[in-house]
């Protein structure tokens, strides 16, 4: 079957700490992955993406790591801020453009 899932449903961190959110995927043929942030009552917001020919990509305060051997993605957020509190989804881009989302990890940043 197909699935993109997350290891932890919730993550609580202190402001200023680094956060790591994990994701496992099952389709070894997938070649494009995206992390989205969803705040309460809003649509998913694009954070960062990575293609399968890379194992690391950095953005502003965020880094995505891809391990194709074990079919694992992670999102690292540096110096986590209260505004980072949200649900984070990884999504796998399938043929045709269809995104398969994981269940989501709720990140809570404590001041």
């Amino acid at each position, binding site marked *: 079957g197909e699935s993109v899932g997350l290891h932890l449903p919730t993550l609580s961190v202190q402001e200023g700490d680094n956060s790591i959110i994990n994701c496992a995927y099952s389709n070894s043929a997938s070649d494009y992955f995206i992390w989205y942030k969803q705040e309460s009552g809003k649509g998913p917001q694009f954070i960062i993406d990575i293609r399968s020919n890379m194992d690391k990509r950095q953005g502003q305060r965020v880094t995505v790591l891809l391990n194709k051997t074990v079919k694992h993605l992670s999102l690292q957020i540096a110096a986590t801020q209260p505004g980072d509190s949200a649900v984070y989804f990884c999504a796998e881009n399938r043929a045709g*453009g269809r995104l398969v989302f994981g269940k989501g990890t709720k990140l809570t940043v404590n001041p």
Partner: protein
Amino acid sequence: EPEVTQTPSHQVTQMGQEVILRCVPISNHLYFYWYRQILGQKVEFLVSFYNNEISEKSEIFDDQFSVERPDGSNFTLKIRSTKLEDSAMYFCASSESRVREQFFGPGTRLTVL
């Protein structure tokens, strides 16, 4: 910054009624999508649309659902006879290509009574 817009933000309807959810994708995007999210669950793909036809649809997207791009800017999702289980957030998304990031609208909350 260009963004995807959706109307209405909240739609309440009676079971069996037809609803049309509207979206205005980002203007230079060519690929359009509908997703839904039942409360507390993950986002699920419904349908993708390109070149005025459906590219792919999920098993959720049965005969009660249809999509249309009636003009150069709007993209609509119609549910012909709503069921209680259609209650969800419906998100429209658009992208420049199949393998580029998809930008999501704010969603329409559909409540079927």
